[in-house]
């Protein structure tokens, strides 16, 4: 997330600068417009003022002329007053005009001309006054000056009005400019405003969005931090960070707790940490720290620490270099308290050893018992037979009867011991698995039973069986036992027929394989048409020494199927039997695919 924001920052920066530039540009233009506007406004005012002053001058002149005329007629000095006032005003106006038109050269020139004209007029006024006397209107000097004065006045009139006109022209021009400025300037202003707003809006939304993202990331980080803290506490580990360039460490709170201390109770460093390392592991730890500083890397190391209260704990530590985007090198590491694991492991190992020992003892016991019981039993039987041979004549009928009974009991015992011995031999411990062709094993089993098979006219058909890893002798015995069973429990009404089929199955598709660990199994079924059995005994028949018939009907000790089960279990497989009374039985065994 931060990466994305960072990448965008270039874009944002450039957008910002371009927009700012545009705004400044437009702003400059606007400023100039406004300037122009005010300038033109000022000029307008100036021109108005000029015109006003010019008009004033003319009026004042006219007033002066009127006054003069009044005086000339009446010789009343009261009429001289407008004249004098007029002159003063004219002077003032001139001064004002001069000031107003200070930057207007043509105007200045005109003013000069006007000034000289006005001076001339004033001259004529003065002359006219000099030469005037009441009643004497026909003095030549007077009329000449008076008329000349009148001419000058006309010229002034023309002049002033010409000036006024040109000023008006100018005024018009300026007015036009003013008006056009007036039109454009608000538009520029408006544009600037809009663009600024737009820019602000974009910036605003971007910032808000980024803020949101950062906030979300922050929140995530917060949650993450919190959950890390929690997980550290629960799983008993702590995190550490090595800042490679500064060679300083940071320890997580829980790391301190693992050492039996309060969080952040001492400065994080290897020296301080090694105070807790078990004396016997100090060397190793030191070496590993050197390696850490050299390679910025710490493969899994194991060591013990001793807490202040004397408790020894087993630790596992690991560290790996981390390069974040700003290029600051760090090593991120973990320390785990594995005392629990180690102890569990030790206990498990002990238990396993004990179990193995128990098993071995039981097997040995089993074997030795069966094996060593055979000897005395055999002696008993043999001596019995000798006795029979040699001393039958000397025995009474009761004696003979008892002897028979003894023989029978001994035989029974012999069978049981033989079977027990066979059962105990089916121990997996010392048998090795090898790749073998099950067809060959089946064939061997049939050969072993060849005599009975021929005797009973049994027909055995088999599909193709696989070649898999198994204990050959045991699987051969499995076949042998199952076929023997089918032959033994044949129906009196028909010749035994045994069908052996094979298929590869998925554990999930076989209802009987609910507890299976592997996914695929080899399935072999052995179906016969014998006397079958009641399905409610389907599990019973595999129990050691369990029989469904008494020993007078069918020989046997009930160990055959138990041995079958043990063999199949040795191969991590399963065996099941189902029967239909008088119809037959089906035995199925599953061997896992390795």
């Amino acid at each position, binding site marked *: 997330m931060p990466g994305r924001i960072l990448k965008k920052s270039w874009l944002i920066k450039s957008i910002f600068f371009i927009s700012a530039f545009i705004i400044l540009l437009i702003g400059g233009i606007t400023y100039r417009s406004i300037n122009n506007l005010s300038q033109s406004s000022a000029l307008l005012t100036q021109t108005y003022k000029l015109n006003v002053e010019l008009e004033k001058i003319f009026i004042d002149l006219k007033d002066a002329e009127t006054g003069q005329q009044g005086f000339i007629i009446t010789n009343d000095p009261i009429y001289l007053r407008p004249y004098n006032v007029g002159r003063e005003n004219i002077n003032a106006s001139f001064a004002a005009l001069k000031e107003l038109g200070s930057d207007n050269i043509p105007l200045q020139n005109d003013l000069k001309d006007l000034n000289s004209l006005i001076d001339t007029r004033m001259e004529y006024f003065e002359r006219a006054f000099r030469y005037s006397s009441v009643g004497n209107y026909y003095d030549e000097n007077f009329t000449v000056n008076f008329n000349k004065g009148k001419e000058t006045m006309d010229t002034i009139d023309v002049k002033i009005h010409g000036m006024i006109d040109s000023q008006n022209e100018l005024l018009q021009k300026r007015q036009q400019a003013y008006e056009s400025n007036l039109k454009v300037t608000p538009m520029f202003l408006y544009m600037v405003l809009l663009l600024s707003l737009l820019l602000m809006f974009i910036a605003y939304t971007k910032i808000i969005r980024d803020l949101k993202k950062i906030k979300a990331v922050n929140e995530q980080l917060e949650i993450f931090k919190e959950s890390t803290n929690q997980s550290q506490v629960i799983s008993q580990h702590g995190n550490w960070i090595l800042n490679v360039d500064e060679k300083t460490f940071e320890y997580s709170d829980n790391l301190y707790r693992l050492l039996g201390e309060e969080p952040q109770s001492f400065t994080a460093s290897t020296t301080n940490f090694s105070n807790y390392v078990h004396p016997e592991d100090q060397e190793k730890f030191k070496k590993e720290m050197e390696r850490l500083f050299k390679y910025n890397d710490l493969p899994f190391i194991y060591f013990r620490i001793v807490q202040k209260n004397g408790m020894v704990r087993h630790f596992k530590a690991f560290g790996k270099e981390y390069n974040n985007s700003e290029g600051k090198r760090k090593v991120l590491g973990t320390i785990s308290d594995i005392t629990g694991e180690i102890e569990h492991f030790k206990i498990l190992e002990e238990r396993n050893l004990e179990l193995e020992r128990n098993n071995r003892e039981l097997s040995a016991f089993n074997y030795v018992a069966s094996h060593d019981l055979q000897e005395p039993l055999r002696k008993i*039987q*043999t001596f019995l037979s000798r006795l029979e041979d040699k001393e039958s004549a000397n025995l009474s009928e009761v004696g003979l009867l008892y002897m028979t009974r003894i023989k029978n009991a001994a035989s029974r015992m012999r069978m049981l011991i033989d079977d027990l*011995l066979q059962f105990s031999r089916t121990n997996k411990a010392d048998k090795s698995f090898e790749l073998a062709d099950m067809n060959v094993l089946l064939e061997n089993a049939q050969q072993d039973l060849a005599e009975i098979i021929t005797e009973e006219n049994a027909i055995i058909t088999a599909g193709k069986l696989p070649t898999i890893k198994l204990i050959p002798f045991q699987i051969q015995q499995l076949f042998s036992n199952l076929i023997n069973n089918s032959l033994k429990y044949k129906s009196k009404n028909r010749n035994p027929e045994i069908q052996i089929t094979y298929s590869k199955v998925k554990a999930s598709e076989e209802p009987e394989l609910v507890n299976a660990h592997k996914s695929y199994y080899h399935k072999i079924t052995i179906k016969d048409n014998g006397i079958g059995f009641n399905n409610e005994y389907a599990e019973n028949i595999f129990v050691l020494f369990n029989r469904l018939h008494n020993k007078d009907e069918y020989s046997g000790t009930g160990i055959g199927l138990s041995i079958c089960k043990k063999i199949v279990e040795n191969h991590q497989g399963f065996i099941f039997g189902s029967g239909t009374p008088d119809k037959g039985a089906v035995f199925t065994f599953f061997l896992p695919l390795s």
Partner: protein
Amino acid sequence: MQEDYINIILADDDADDRMFFTDAFEELKITTKVKTFNDGVELMDYLHTDDAVFPNVLFLDLNMPRKSGLECLTEIKQSDKFNDMAIAIYSTSASEEDIEKTFVMGANIYIKKPNDFKTLKKVLQEVITINWQYHTNGLNKDNFLLRL
């Protein structure tokens, strides 16, 4: 059987079994000379003597102290001078694999000690007969394997 006598040796640590064995031969119609030894060491010591008379058939018990039947078997097979001897393992029950192992190691015959005397006689008779047949008919002794 037209024979002078057949030489038999038995090595077995059990006194009762030795008794059964010799009694059985006594009751058989075959003329035999039976010698018994108490364990493997006694047996091998005898066999290595210069004037030892090698038996036609040597019966070996497997479980003997000091030197077991298998050890004797291995030793015997290492020397060519015993090649005319048929070796019979005479033992209480063993597993299929163990029985096969004795054959592989060179035994010709494996006999599981029977439970009654009559069977014992029958078995011993058969051993001697078949052995003699091999002998007189020039059959390949390397392939001579018999299990009773």
